[in-house]
Structures are given as C-alpha cells and as structure tokens.
C-alpha cells in the first residue's frame, strides 16, 4: 500500500516540478517516508526511494541509458577504534585511533558496479563508494584521512558493515523503465536517531548530469522517547525510580512466593 502511494506521490511530484524547457535532464526523487518512528516494537525498517529522469524534446539521446547512484548518510559521530596485539603472552589493546565526525550510517546504492558507471577520479571527486568516502582519523595532533589499505580504516569499514550500518550495493537501484528507478534503503534496528541525507546522482555516458538531495529523519516516539528524555534530563530521579522499581519487584516476588 505504502509503495503504491509512493509511486503516486512520485508521479505527482514529477508532474509538478518538471521543468518547462531545459535541454539537460532533470532528476526528481521521492522517499516512501520522511520519518522513521522508533517505538517499542521497532525492529528496523525499509525506506523506498523513487526517482524519475525528466526529459523533453530537446534533451540529447543517451545511447547507453542512465546510471543512478544514491548515497545515504546518517548523523555524524566520533568513534574510538582499538587494535589488540599480543603483549607478554596476553592479548591487549595496544593501539587506538579516533574516527572523527564520520557518518554513523552510510549506504551507497547504484544500478551497476561503480567502476562501470564513471571513471575512478570522478567517483573520487563525488565521494562514491567506501573507498572514496572521507573517514577522518585523528592520529596524534593531526586530522587526516589515510590510504585505502590502512588496516584501521579497513577494520572500521568491516565492523560497520557487520552491524549493517555501512553498505555498498552496486545492484541496489533498479530501473523500472528507462527513466524511472527505485531503490530500497535498509534501516537496521540499531541505526542511530537523527537526520539522514539522501543524495541521488544521475550519470550518462560516464559523466554526472545532475544531482538532487532529499532527507529523512529517525526519531524515537511515545514511551521510548519518554524513557530517553527522563534518563537524560532527570538522571537522579530516573535512577531513584529505577531503584524503587527494583525494590518493588523484589518485595512483590517475596510476597507472592511466601510459603510460611
């Protein structure tokens, strides 16, 4: 139902914003939802991205069709990454690096492998793919992104991918017709709350023609929101309430199970 609505919505948007007479293609995108609500039964979600390439009579013919890349990135966060090594027989954390202001969520979706869409330096300029995403590390007093082969960088990407928070999907975008496409953005349950940006780039003949951005938000609602607000704004009260809850539970059990 939601998806049908989204298609309709995309069509309306398409009709309303289609430029009158521009030679180059336009790009119109729409998300199935602008807000992902986390309640107590939340186990993850999926957002569907719909897009349409707008053309008119003056638009040049594209012999090899269109390519689309969508980059979804979540709120920025800083993470401390630790590396273990053997030291006098035991495994301990010996080295650490801080990743500064990196996306907490990153999905790079395309309709075919990135290297078939554009040349490496264009992909690098547009920051398409894990290899071209800037992951700033703090190494001593310096802030810099490092070479792709850096073991810390690779470990970081591996760990984030295992949690489902980073993904590269060269087949994540599907063309429904030569100018209409859709993509599914998976939102794992552990995705952090905050605003997410969606950047959609349109390619043809190895060059980027146009791009557009959209956004959605993940937020906690209802009881989940109440608990988080209470914990953050009224820490002492929250703690005392939790202890009271513990004592009540303990007392209740001892009354119920009283045998004598």
């Amino acid at each position, binding site marked *: 139902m939601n998806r049908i609505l989204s298609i309709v919505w995309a069509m309306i948007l398409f009709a309303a914003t289609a430029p009158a007479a521009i030679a180059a293609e336009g790009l119109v995108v729409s998300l199935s939802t602008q807000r992902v609500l986390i309640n107590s039964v*939340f186990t993850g979600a999926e957002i569907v991205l719909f897009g349409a390439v707008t053309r008119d009579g003056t638009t040049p013919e594209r012999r090899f069709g269109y390519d689309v890349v969508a980059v979804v990135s979540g709120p920025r966060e800083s993470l401390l990454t630790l590396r*273990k090594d053997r030291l006098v027989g035991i495994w301990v954390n010996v080295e650490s690096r801080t990743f500064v202001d990196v996306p907490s969520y990153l999905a790079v979706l395309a309709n075919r492998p990135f290297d078939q869409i554009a040349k490496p330096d264009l992909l690098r300029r547009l920051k398409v793919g894990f290899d071209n995403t800037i992951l700033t590390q703090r190494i001593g007093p310096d802030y810099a992104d490092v070479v792709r082969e850096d073991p810390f960088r690779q470990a970081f990407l591996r760990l984030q991918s295992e949690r489902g928070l980073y993904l590269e999907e060269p087949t994540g975008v599907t063309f429904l017709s030569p100018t209409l496409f859709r993509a599914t953005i998976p939102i794992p349950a552990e995705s952090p709350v905050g605003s997410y940006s969606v950047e959609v780039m349109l390619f043809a003949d190895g060059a980027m023609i146009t791009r557009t951005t959209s956004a959605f938000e993940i937020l906690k609602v209802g009881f989940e929101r109440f608990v988080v607000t209470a914990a953050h704004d009224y820490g002492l009260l929250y703690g005392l309430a939790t202890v009271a809850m513990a004592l009540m539970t303990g007392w209740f059990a001892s009354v119920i199970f009283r045998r004598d």
Partner: protein
Amino acid sequence: MEIYLPIADLPVNIFVVFAMGLSVGFISGMFGIGGGFLMTPLLIFIGVSPAVAVATVSSHIAASSFSGALLYWRRRALDLALAIMLLAGGLVGTALGVWLFTFLRDIGQLNLVIALSYVILLGSVGAVMVTESVRAMVRLQRGASVDVRRPGPHNLLHGLPIKVRFKESRLYVSVIPVWVIGATIGFIGAILGIGGGFILVPLLIYLLRVPTNVVIGTSMVLTLVTMATATVLHATTNQLVDAVLALILMVGGVIGAQFGAQAGQEMRSERLRLLLGLLVSLVGLRFAIDLFVMPGELYSFRLLEGGR
C-alpha cells in the same frame, strides 16, 4: 517477541532476556551472590554495549538481592549488624576504587586491569573454594565429624582489639577485619563493576567463620545497598541505565532468586560451596581464554560522541 530497548538502542527478544534474568536470579539466590559477573557478559553477548550492560545489571542485582534478603530475613538467616559494619568499610573502599578507576582509565589500561583482575580473582577464589569443599566432602564420606565452626585455636584475626558481638552469626570478633573485608569488597566492586558477593561469601566463611546460612543473607543486604547506590550513580553520571531492560531482567531475576534461595537452603553447605567454586572458576577460565587465545577480531570500537 521483540521489544526495542530505549537506552541500549536495539531490539531484543523479551523471552530470551527474561530467561537470562531467571537463570542468573536462580544462581544468585542459591549462592547469595549478585550474579553481575555472569549477567554482564551475557548482556554484552546479545549485543548490549558494555557500558549500558554494567549500569543496567546493577539495578537487576538490587532487585534480586532485595527479594532474597527478605526471604533470609524472615528465616532469621541474616546478620544485620554485621552487614552494617561491612558497609561502613565498604564505603571507604568504594571511594578508593572509584579514584583508581578514573586513574586507570586516564592512563588507558582499565580494560587490561579489569580482565586480569577477573582472571586472578575468580581463578583463585574458585580454586580455594573447590579444594576446600572437596576436602570437607571427603571427610564427610569417611564418617569423620565435620566441624564447620572449628572452635579452639582461633586464627590471628581473633586477637585484634575493638571486639564486637554479632549475635546472629554467633561471633565475637574485632571490627577491624570486618571493616577491612568490607573495604576490600567495595574497592574491588567499584573497579570491576560487580557487587563482589562471590568474594565476600568465601571471605566471611573462611576468615571470619560466619556460619554459611547467615553469610548468604548478610551478603545480600550488602549487595542490595551497593547495587542500589551504583544504579543511582550510573543514572546520574552517564545516563546509561536502561529501565526497560532492567525491568525484564528484574522480573525474571526475582522469580529465579526465590527458587534459588529455596534450593540453596536445602542443599548441604559444602556441596553449595563446591558448586559456587566451580562456577566461579569457569567464569575465570572464560576470561583467561579471552586473554590468552588470539581473538577472531583484533579491532573493536566504541562511540565517543554524537549520533545518538
């Protein structure tokens, strides 16, 4: 049935968590220990971040030790005076422990110290308990009279001044070793994030010679107070107590603790000590394996700021 935890930021199966509470509660009721050294690793295993796990477990332990303490209180198997004296020392120890905790974190070696302490503490406490209880059981097999109280020549501790009579424990000892034991438990608890029941129980039995049945109830009172304090401190300082997770664990925990306490009362005390000794040794071994065997993933990370 999945439920989303608001502070831990992940969905968990409510029945799995409930079962975890139930089984750890059973063990804690049976041996008079908090069970934090079992529950914290279990929570981390299902995906809860270590910080949230430690903070939340404290409230779970408060609940199960309160229900256990009530049961022992009704059976008069609890020495309140001894518990208060231990707590007096415990406060000093906790303050010292928190100071060392901060210091170790600043020099970046906290995790190593925690892991090593677990191995050494659990390993030695477990080994002592196992050998002692096996010896007691062998003596019992031979038909020799087992005198747990072991009167006669007291150990060095009984020669110290400021003697106090603890009626419930049928003890007349100096308060100095009681304070020292309390301070030690508080100190270890603050550094390792555990109630310290599994160390307190053997210390009271072997050093002070408190009767086993009184030890468990007394240890529960101590655990209750320290864990309730820890919950409030964790909630105010870093907002990491997940009340929803805590509630599921608690309900399972208190039910388990009731059955565990009953099972513990019916069991012979040397057998109880053997079981606890084995359990403690096993967890110690688990930590040792983590230290000595090459981990599958050498890298790990933790959130510093932003995002959530």
